[in-house]
């Protein structure tokens, strides 16, 4: 166990984020909205510093007592570092694509990067939480910033509606998690993950089981897994697109990492109690995500259903309840972040000559003839999301199903694969519209270089070239998963 000064060193990334956020907040207050671009750049720099702090932890695969800070409330191990790096990456993208979007609406405010930084701080605490209190405060910090970000386009009715919906349902989910936590605390007598795991290692009492279920239900809300997914399409559609890009990536990574921590930490000795719940949620998410997407005419709603679908595949790795499953989830998460970023950057680039956003799928018709670059990128993203082999998205699904099969969940894997075929239908439908329909030629040429660069990088990662990353990615994910399964 570390003393106070060592603990402060372990939370270096959080300190950088907090101090950076506070300084930028002051800058935002004094310099006003004109400086929002400079503040965004500074915020990306802060995230880069944090990434440099977190990277060695992952590279060395640190775990065990020397990574535990503040008497077990916080753990800066390799698992947390893996999730943190993905979060920094997603947040940086959300910062880089924002000025172009908000400037067009005349709504770029200097508080946007500051709120993103504080949301990242909350997510950092979530992925490193080894105490229910840290979990809750991190979750709340992230959620509060997210509610404001969803409603950031104040003049837009849909954005305000998204913010309000997200707030009400998010508050409900927080209440459910708190209720579950209080039950677990009542029956375990501690909020510390290791202590709860120790107390709950025997037969589970009904009260503690209720606590477990409520905590998992609340977390399912946050990762938008079926049957707690209803808010996702509305919020994704209504929120400003850069914010949706953020929602689809960073908080998903954080909430999933948190779910893994909770499932394998305090409830690690009770796999039988939660495994069937996770199996149900995984299958329901895959099926509902695939079927719900079919009727959608709005690309952002469609991507929302696609993210529900992907969460289902990710949860298959959790249902396996093995280090291999956890490692597979992390690999999938990595690929998922790049697929989502590419998908939403394409949505951001879809603009007509007046600069109005094009969100209707019909307007993609004949994109291959009018804007071939964008169409091929769209094809890469859609095929990758569908998991069609030469693209990297296939690898994520492959490792997850492999983990499920080696954990003897063959039925789960079989149903999952069958449902992914249903999912492939609507991905391929978009490709068909873009490549084979009569062109409507509404999409204007893209001018922003930053969007092009981000899209190019993301597309290279999800292209077959991504397979070059697999040995490196696999070893990092294995290190992170080992840290997660270490019993202190």
């Amino acid at each position, binding site marked *: 166990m570390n003393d106070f000064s060592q603990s402060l060193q372990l939370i270096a990334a959080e300190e950088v984020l907090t101090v950076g956020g506070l300084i930028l907040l002051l800058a935002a207050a004094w310099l006003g909205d004109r400086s929002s671009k400079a503040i965004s750049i500074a915020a990306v720099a802060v995230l880069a510093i944090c990434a440099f702090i977190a990277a060695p932890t992952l590279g060395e695969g640190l775990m065990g007592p020397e990574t535990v800070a*503040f008497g077990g409330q916080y753990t800066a191990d390799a698992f947390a570092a893996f999730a943190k790096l993905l979060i920094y990456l997603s947040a940086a993208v959300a910062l880089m694509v924002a000025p172009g979007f908000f400037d067009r609406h005349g709504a770029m405010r200097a508080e946007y990067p500051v709120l993103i930084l504080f949301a990242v*701080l909350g997510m950092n*605490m979530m992925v490193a939480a080894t105490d229910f*209190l840290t979990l809750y405060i991190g979750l709340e*910090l992230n959620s509060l910033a997210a509610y*404001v970000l969803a409603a950031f386009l104040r003049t837009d009715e849909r954005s305000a509606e998204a913010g309000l919906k997200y707030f009400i349902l998010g508050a409900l989910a927080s209440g459910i998690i708190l209720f579950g936590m209080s039950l677990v605390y009542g029956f375990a007598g501690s909020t510390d993950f290791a202590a709860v795991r120790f107390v709950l290692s025997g037969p589970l009492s009904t009260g503690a089981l209720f606590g477990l279920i409520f905590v998992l239900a609340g977390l399912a809300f946050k990762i938008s897994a079926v049957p707690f997914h209803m808010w996702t399409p509305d919020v994704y559609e209504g929120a400003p697109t850069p914010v949706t890009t953020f929602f689809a990536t960073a908080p998903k990574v954080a909430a999933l990492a948190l779910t893994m921590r909770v499932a394998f930490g305090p409830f690690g000795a009770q796999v039988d109690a939660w495994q069937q719940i996770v199996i149900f949620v995984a299958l329901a998410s895959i099926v509902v995500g695939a079927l719900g997407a079919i009727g959608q005419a709005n690309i952002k709603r469609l991507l929302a259903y696609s993210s529900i679908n992907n969460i289902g595949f990710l949860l298959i790795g959790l249902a396996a309840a093995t280090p291999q499953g956890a490692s597979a989830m992390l690999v999938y998460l990595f690929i998922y972040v790049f697929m989502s970023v590419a998908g939403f950057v394409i949505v951001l680039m879809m603009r007509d000559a007046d600069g109005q956003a094009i969100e209707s799928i019909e307007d993609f018709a004949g994109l291959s003839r009018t804007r071939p670059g964008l169409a091929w990128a769209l094809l890469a993203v859609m095929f990758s999301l569908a998991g069609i082999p030469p693209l990297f998205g296939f690898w994520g699904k492959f490792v997850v199903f492999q983990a499920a099969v080696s954990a003897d969940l063959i039925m789960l894997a079989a149903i999952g694969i069958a449902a992914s075929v249903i999912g492939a239908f609507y991905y391929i439908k978009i490709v068909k519209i873009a490549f084979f329909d009569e062109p409507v030629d509404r999409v204007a040429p893209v001018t922003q270089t930053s969007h092009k660069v981000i899209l190019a990088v993301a597309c290279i990662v999800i292209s077959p070239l991504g397979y070059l990353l697999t040995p490196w990615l696999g070893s990092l994910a294995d290190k992170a998963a080992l840290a997660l399964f270490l019993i202190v």
Partner: protein
Amino acid sequence: MIQTITFYLFAALLILSAVFVIMARNPVHSVLWLIVCFFNAAALMILIGAEFIAMLLVIVYVGAVAVLFLFVVMMLDIDFAELRAGFVKNFPFGIILAIVLLAELVLGFGAYRAGGLDIGMADGTAAPIIGESNIESLGALLYGRYLFLFEAAGVVLLVAMVGAIVLTLRQRSEVRGQNIAHQIARRPEDATYNASPETGKGVRL
């Protein structure tokens, strides 16, 4: 003995003032009775040795919540006579609700006395320091063991504040605020001049 007397004194005053909260005709009086109510509750907390909660009651409830109520009552034009008009109609529902609450209390106490619930033992991390007041025990925990979370909770409040301002503050061009520096910098010679208008010509302003 003296403890028992004090308890009954404060408890009786608490119930009495609570009754006055709903009986008072003037809503401002209701809020004032509510404050009396909070003070008596705080006194009861001191009696059982929970002086921190007593202070919280006074600071948070009397200092903030009750004053907020007072503001709302005074600023909103609510016709309380009209609100009360439904009293007789809703009376049966009120009675049913009261019975439900009473049944819950009885059930709760019954379950507590049966003692069948096997809950966990506290792990001792939050145990009070022997011989110290509970304010010091809480302080030692909040600023010692839970310092990290305490600071993080501060950031949560900051984000809430920033969020509220971001969503509601808008720059209005038609509002002319006071610019003190501008006012001070203004010299008499900028603002006044001597004029000697000719008879029947008037002044140009």
